[in-house]
């Protein structure tokens, strides 16, 4: 099923200042979109705004032709899921119980736990490789396992759009790649539209079908990484002088920072 998710003239903020101002953006359906930018550029804010966790100050978020503010929150939650940056795990909760909480929007006071919920939880745990952890307490797991459990909870929600706010933070490089491979699997196999905020530009360029580079609450560039990421853009967005080379594995742009203490080594050496 295809979905439309876009923002029109969207302004968002917390204090007196807007963090994101008058922004227009469209999330391509069925693709992996990655939002990148320096700290405090508004990328997480934009993601939270798209997932209606922040009320717009101007403009609106449109989901399938309707303003998100006009839809019931639980209806939105059956189409669009979000894994926040720092969700809270209740003390002592087991993996299966936590993943099961993703079924909330499919239940109501008269419609309690059903076979369909069991199936969705099982599928989510199986595809994230967490099924064998089902009865373990979350607190007994490693950081990488824990993050896969949270992703499983977001998947149990069974939405076509999945938004993830910095899901690779606190993971080592191996687990980062593993998680991004998993999200790519979900995107390719189940045609889920995935939107991520990532810090690592090289991984962003490799895994994104569509990249959105933000600075100071505005979009500087967006498009396929290979078309839009070059040294000039990285320098503008991050203020970082760098070289951009083709990634030897994926041929996507790979960023090599210059820093102040190193001079380029001549290629002939």
């Amino acid at each position, binding site marked *: 099923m295809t979905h439309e998710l876009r923002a029109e003239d969207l302004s968002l903020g917390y204090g007196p200042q807007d963090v994101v101002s008058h922004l227009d953006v469209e999330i391509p359906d069925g693709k992996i979109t990655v939002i990148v930018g320096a700290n405090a550029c508004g990328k997480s804010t934009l993601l939270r705004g798209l997932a209606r966790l922040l009320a717009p100050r101007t403009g609106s978020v449109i989901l399938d032709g309707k303003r998100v503010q006009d839809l019931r929150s639980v209806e939105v939650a059956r189409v669009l899921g979000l894994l926040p940056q720092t969700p809270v795990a209740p003390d002592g909760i087991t993996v299966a*119980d936590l993943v099961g909480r993703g079924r909330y929007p499919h239940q109501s006071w008269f419609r309690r736990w059903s076979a369909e919920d069991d199936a969705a939880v099982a599928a989510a745990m199986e595809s994230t490789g967490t099924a064998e952890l089902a009865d373990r307490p979350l607190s007994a797991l490693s950081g990488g396992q824990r993050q896969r459990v949270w992703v499983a909870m977001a998947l149990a929600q069974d939405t076509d759009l999945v938004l993830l706010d910095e899901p690779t933070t606190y993971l080592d490089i191996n687990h980062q790649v593993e998680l991004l491979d998993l999200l790519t699997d979900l995107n390719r196999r189940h045609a889920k539209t995935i939107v991520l905020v990532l810090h690592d530009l090289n991984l962003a360029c490799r895994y994104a079908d569509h990249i959105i580079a933000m600075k100071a609450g505005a979009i500087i560039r967006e498009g396929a990484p290979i078309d839009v990421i070059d040294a000039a853009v990285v320098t503008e967005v991050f203020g970082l002088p760098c070289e951009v080379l083709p990634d030897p594995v994926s041929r996507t742009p790979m960023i090599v920072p210059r820093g102040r203490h190193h001079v380029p080594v001549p290629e002939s050496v």
Partner: protein
Amino acid sequence: MATPTLVQDTDVEHAVGTIQRGRVVRKGRVLGVTTALALLAFALFVATMMVGSFPVTPWEVIASTFRLGSDPSVDFVVRDLRLPVATTALAVGLAMGVSGLVFQKLLANPLASPDFVGISSGAGLAAVGSIILLNVSAMFVSVAALGGALVAALLIYLLAWRDGITGYRFILIGIGVSELMVALTGYLIARADIFEAREAMTWLVGSVGNAGPTQLRILLVALAVLLPLTLVLNRHLDVLELGDDAAKALGANVERMRLVLLAVAVVLVALATAAAGPLPFVALIAGPIAVRLIGANGSGLVAAAFVGALIVLVADLVAQHVVPVELPTGVVTGAIGAPYLIWLLATVNREGRGG
């Protein structure tokens, strides 16, 4: 730790089986523990009515309670003297136990019980004020206590509101409000004459023997309505526990659900406090004990209610019959609760959570 590259249907079927079995086991554990607690609470409920200067057998207690007995002297002792106190202990314990756990889950902190965040002290100030300044009947004192608890809760909620409620701000402001109420209560008692001060102090310690029949009836009706309501609302509590962002992303109406759950918990603890005074620590310790017994197998709200009832029934039994002088119930719950609080504060800080 390899991420599976291909998910087979048989794997999913296997996982469904694992999850269903796990759910049945967890439900069984919750049901087992809760039933055991309920039976224990009932046994204590009967036991508190057996002992005293006129000993009665358990069968006489049960027969008389359910109006099956025919011995008028037993009926008088059980139904008129002991049943109201035992019922108050049971009802107050149930209400405080469930209310405390709802607070702790909602504010994600083991210290967030209503006797900590100023709701009980709001009730205390209003009750003491009505005793000393207005010289009113016991019935009005409990109405005042109810009002005081509700006003304190509303005050904390409004002061803590800033684009929503966070657990930390609610607790800190609640402690501040609590201190203010305690200070004002102290001022009133210091100015009162000795008889009023004594009456006020007695109320403040709390005793299940204080409740009048009307207060008890109101509490029982509230329990009959609000306990099932809490269970219906439990699935919202389950997602609110994951933090505001996760709960909103799952489609929960976070602010409304939090307000409704807080209101239910406040009304329960306010009515319990109005009936028996602010029995210290019952709401604080019932929830964690229930959660420890149930483990990660369920929410434990019903178990917390029964643990609360057990604590108050035991405290009443000890206060009336075990110690050489008869004490108010609150002295005993305080004596049980204070060491727990010290242990909690010590371990919470060591683990770097909550507190």
